[in-house]
């Protein structure tokens, strides 16, 4: 795939929705350890609504699809992850003009998504949040972008997965897990884990 178009965006979201559904219990269990046991339920509710919202939705390019995804997540998920993922998808979508984009352009859009997350949540890398998977993912994407969509997305997915895994060592400083102080160490962050799922879904879509 050389261009990321509306169909690719739909395929990505469908793959992400399937991954979230399949891993919903796991995400909720992770959230149970250091949060309030709802992350999988939240995202699954959101992506189920997204799937319904995209059904029959007319879009002239990937941007419109992803803005719709973001808006739907914001109005269906709630909690911390709803506004964060919702704003991220809206920012990605807004950055994608035209019927299709190449790897560097999608990389820049994903970076806009990260910026939206950081602006809203004020989390820095190392705070044990979504940022700890998303930030290395966009870094890896940029480095690999010259190799095209498949290579960039694979690199990003691997980086997101590594980043998510590494959150286990961290002490949370943002979100609900932060209340645990040092007791949050040893548990992988649910939000970083769902971010890795979303990047893995993208890699599977554009491969």
């Amino acid at each position: 795939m050389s261009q990321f178009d509306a169909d690719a965006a739909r395929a990505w979201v469908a793959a992400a929705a399937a991954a979230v559904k399949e891993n919903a219990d796991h995400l909720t269990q992770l959230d149970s350890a250091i949060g309030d046991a709802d992350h999988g339920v939240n995202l699954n509710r959101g992506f189920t609504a997204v799937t319904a919202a995209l059904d029959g939705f007319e879009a002239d390019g990937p941007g419109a699809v992803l803005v719709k995804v973001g808006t739907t997540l914001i109005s269906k998920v709630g909690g911390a992850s709803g506004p964060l993922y919702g704003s991220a998808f809206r920012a990605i979508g807004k950055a994608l003009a035209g019927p299709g984009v190449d790897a560097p352009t999608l990389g820049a859009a994903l970076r806009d998504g990260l910026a939206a997350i950081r602006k809203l949540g004020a989390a820095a890398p190392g705070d044990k949040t979504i940022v700890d998977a998303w930030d290395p993912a966009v870094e890896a994407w940029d480095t690999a972008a010259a190799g095209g969509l498949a290579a960039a997305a694979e690199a990003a997915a691997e980086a997101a997965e590594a980043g998510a895994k590494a959150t286990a060592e961290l002490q949370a400083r943002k979100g609900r897990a932060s209340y645990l102080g040092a007791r949050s160490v040893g548990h992988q962050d649910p939000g970083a884990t769902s971010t890795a799922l979303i990047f893995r879904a993208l890699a599977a879509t554009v491969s």
Partner: protein
Amino acid sequence: MKKFINAPEDVVREALAGVAAAHPDLRVDLENQIIVRSDAPFSGKVGLISGGGSGHEPLHGGFVGRGMLDAAVPGEVFTSPVPDQILAATKAVDGGAGVVHIVKNYTGDVMNFQMAAELAADDGITVESVLVDDDVAVEDSTWTAGRRGTGATVFVEKIAGALADEGASAADVAAVGRRVNEASGSFAVALTACTTPAAGKPGFDLPEDEIEVGVGIHGEPGRRREKLKPAKEIAAIAVESILAAKPMAGGDRAIVMVNGLGGTPLLELYILYGHVAALLADAGVEIVHKLVGNYITSLDMAGMSLTILKADDELIRLWEAPVVTPGLRWGA
């Protein structure tokens, strides 16, 4: 998991249907999932709304009514509501004098209310927000998302509601709400974890002889575990933790709430209240008003929270003002 439910995903919607059937004074908008006074909006009166994840009943829906909230916005269980709901409630209670949002300090609540406030501003509605962060169990707010909003929410809703009833401006209603929050401290102890309908099992494992000290109201584990202790010692931990963070002096007056987290019998709450009253008397603090019961719960968690508000004449006057809601009622 054993609960009186039909399906985990229908819990909030079906409970709202029950609220609608039980309280004809409230208008339940099942589509937007909000609870509104059926006589709202009031022209010229500030609209007061609050909301947050469900599972803390009677908070917030049980505090909708004269002298307290104009609307409540319940999210899914332990999940903050979404901006659309909050916006719908904001519009439903706007009588032209602006709307005050009472928001508990959790990342999700803060973000979703913030987004709704921006959307409301786009619609020309002035929104003031009061952030409640009274849980002194969260110590170093630079390393955390900050203190959580817990029991003081009940005090803020009551007192800001009374001032709104008197016709005060949105800025003044918000200001008194912030003043109540600033003057309040809370501390909670759990004996058991709660079980959310979606998770189907307790949020944390607590051995038969341990308690979770400084627990949150969403099943968030506390800051530490200790061995089970007599009620008297638990009351002392709570009182001392609060007074350390929000000092009070001899002669100060207080409004106090000994709150059950959902699975704790009233009998035990009264035992705790007896100890709290004795401890505050020792500190020279006069308890002018008190609540003992379930006001802000955590589903079926066996546990208690203590909230102490250092009160002055104005706060006491507003506390005593009439209130007519399913969860709190006096003076009318």
